[in-house]
Each structure stands twice: as structure tokens, then as C-alpha cells.
């Protein structure tokens, strides 16, 4: 006859029962666990990611997917609260991101050249944060995957002023944007 002595820390005795999925204890624990079950909505996962990428005008390289969203669509003037009209674009972004469940995502906010540098930096940072918040709360995307950065007016993609020094509203509109980068490789 052999005698074995086991000293178990609290709670572990219950875990040992989970070796048999058909046991009454496991089924009882499962029923009790339903009260705090985790169920997430999948935002528009379909097979047509190519079509979604095209809709978004995404640029695809061998290492990343780049999506540029016009800030005027996402936000009211001088605000960082998302407009209802932003939902459609962000839903499509969430679809694409969901297709790469392990890929990190960078959200970068940009402003035009009007206003002070400090103000533009804060506004662009807040706007990037608002997009991240939407993706986490509505897109089912883990916040830990998403990094945000506000660049203010420091990285324009178009002139804020015309060659004669006058205002270039079209250029400034292009500069007001949010850039999303999904790193698909490396």
C-alpha cells in the first residue's frame, strides 16, 4: 500500500475536476460561468476584404496596409469627437484589421498648417485616440494592438499655401487626415 500526501493551494482542487468534460461538476461550473460569458460582436467579417480595401483606397505593400481617412469625414471642424458619418469608414477599417488578428496597428493623426503647433499636436493626438477608442469599443479589436500618434501639422502631404503665399484650402484639406498602418509582415 502506498500513501501520497498532497498539499493543495486554494482553488486548485476545483481545477483538477476539469479533466473530465462530461462530469457533472464541469457542466455545473459551465452553467454558472454563463453569467459572465465573453461574447463579442464581429464587425462585418466577410470574405470580401479585397473589396473593402478597394473601397477604402488602401495602399498595400509587402509589409503593410496603409489606409488614409479624411479628417473632415471623421470629425467636425476643430473637434475630436467622431461624427456619425465616421462609422461607415471605421467599420470597414475594423473589417480589414480583423482579417489580420495578430498584426499591430498604428493610428496617426495629422492637421493642416493653421493654428499653433501645440494646438495642432494636441488635436491630432486626440483624434488618433478617438479612432483607437472606436475600434476597441465597436470593432472588437484589442487596445494593446493599437498605437496612436499625433503629428500635428509636421507631416503635410500637400501644400497648405499656394506658391504665391495665399491659402490653399484643397491642400489643407488633404493634410487633415488620419493614417492607419497595419503591419502585416515583420
Amino acid at each position: 500500500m502506498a500513501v501520497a500526501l498532497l498539499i493543495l493551494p486554494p482553488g486548485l482542487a476545483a481545477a483538477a475536476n476539469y479533466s473530465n468534460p462530461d462530469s457533472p461538476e464541469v457542466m455545473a461550473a459551465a452553467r454558472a460561468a454563463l453569467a459572465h460569458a465573453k461574447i463579442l460582436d464581429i464587425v462585418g467579417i466577410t470574405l470580401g476584404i479585397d473589396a473593402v480595401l478597394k473601397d477604402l483606397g488602401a495602399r498595400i505593400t509587402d509589409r503593410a496596409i496603409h489606409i488614409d481617412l479624411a479628417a473632415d469625414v471623421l470629425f467636425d471642424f476643430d473637434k475630436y469627437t467622431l461624427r456619425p458619418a465616421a462609422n461607415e469608414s471605421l467599420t470597414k477599417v475594423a473589417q480589414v484589421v480583423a482579417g489580420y488578428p495578430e498584426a499591430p496597428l498604428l493610428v496617426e493623426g495629422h492637421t493642416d498648417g493653421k493654428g499653433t503647433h501645440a494646438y495642432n499636436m494636441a488635436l491630432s493626438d486626440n483624434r488618433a485616440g478617438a479612432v483607437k477608442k472606436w475600434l476597441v469599443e465597436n470593432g472588437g479589436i484589442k487596445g494593446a494592438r493599437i498605437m496612436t500618434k499625433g503629428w500635428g501639422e509636421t507631416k503635410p502631404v500637400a501644400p497648405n499655401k499656394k506658391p504665391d503665399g495665399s491659402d490653399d484650402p484643397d491642400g489643407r484639406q488633404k493634410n487633415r487626415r488620419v493614417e492607419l498602418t497595419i503591419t502585416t509582415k515583420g
Partner: protein
Amino acid sequence: MTSCRAVPFLIFLISVLGGCSKESAPSAQTPSAAPSTAPTPVAAAPPPAAAPAASAALKTEDTNIDGVTAEVTECTRKDGVLSVKVRFRNTSGGAKKVDFFAGHDYEKYYVSAASKKYFILKDTEGAYLTPAASSFGGLSVNLQAGGQYTWWAKYPAPPADIKAVTLYTQVAAPLEDIPVSDK
């Protein structure tokens, strides 16, 4: 005399040699958990060397381990709980190791249906209702040639009108259109 109050978690196990034999982790399927001071769940014993006919699979997929297949053998709904079992079989001529996950990443194994993701249920102490990871957070199983291991999990069940689900794992392509039976 030992005081139960002094040692509240003291448990005596008495086993009789040569009498009732206890199931033990066999060579054909051995969970390779890291050493730990606490006992870890042990996989059930495999069938004898001349393997009996396997129960019919609801869905079969190759895994990303050459020679190992994943067969869904159960997907039943009862009392709001979805019970899923997947049999991993080593059909190759050599030993294979199945690394289910690392870092306690149980949530990589989820069920989806009708635009929702259903994650493995956790009890009130946070223990997932599925084979437990080792103290280092990983779950791995060694399968000898011809060996098999049944992984299982409990999920919140999709609504009754959902007749099929997809199971996502870390080791195989999604197992799609798994029929759900109601108990």
C-alpha cells in the same frame, strides 16, 4: 496529531497497488507541462495498441503539424452551454508534439457563429473550462505514432436557431460548418 485547522489544504490520497489501477499519462499521449508543485490535469489514457474504430468526426482538418489531424467529435448544446471536443490524431510514423498555445492564451480557441465570437467559459475563480495550461502558461501534448489526444472546451452556446459554428484554433485552419446538436 495533525490539526486540520493548522493545515486546511491537507489532503490524503491512498492508493492500493495491484488493486484499482489509476489512469496515468501514457506514453502515447503525454502532456508536456513544465514542472510544477501543483498537480495538473492528466490526459485520459489512449485506446490499446490495436486502436479501436474512431468515433465519426463531425469535421476534420489537417493541423499545421505534419501528420496530425484535428477531428471534431462533439459539438453539443445544452442548458446554454456549447460543449466541443476535438480529437487530435497522429497518423504519421513518428512522434509529434502539439503546442496548443503559450502564455495562457486560451482565447485563441474560440467559436464563431452569426457575426459573434464565443470564448471559452471561465469559472468563478477564473479557471477556463478546458484542459489547463501548465504553470508556465503553455499547453502541449506529445503524441506517439498512432496516438491521439482529445482536447475539449465549454463555450456559451449560440442561440437555438444557429445550427452550425466555426471553431478557431492555433493549430489548424478554422473548422467550419460544424453541426450543432441539441441535447
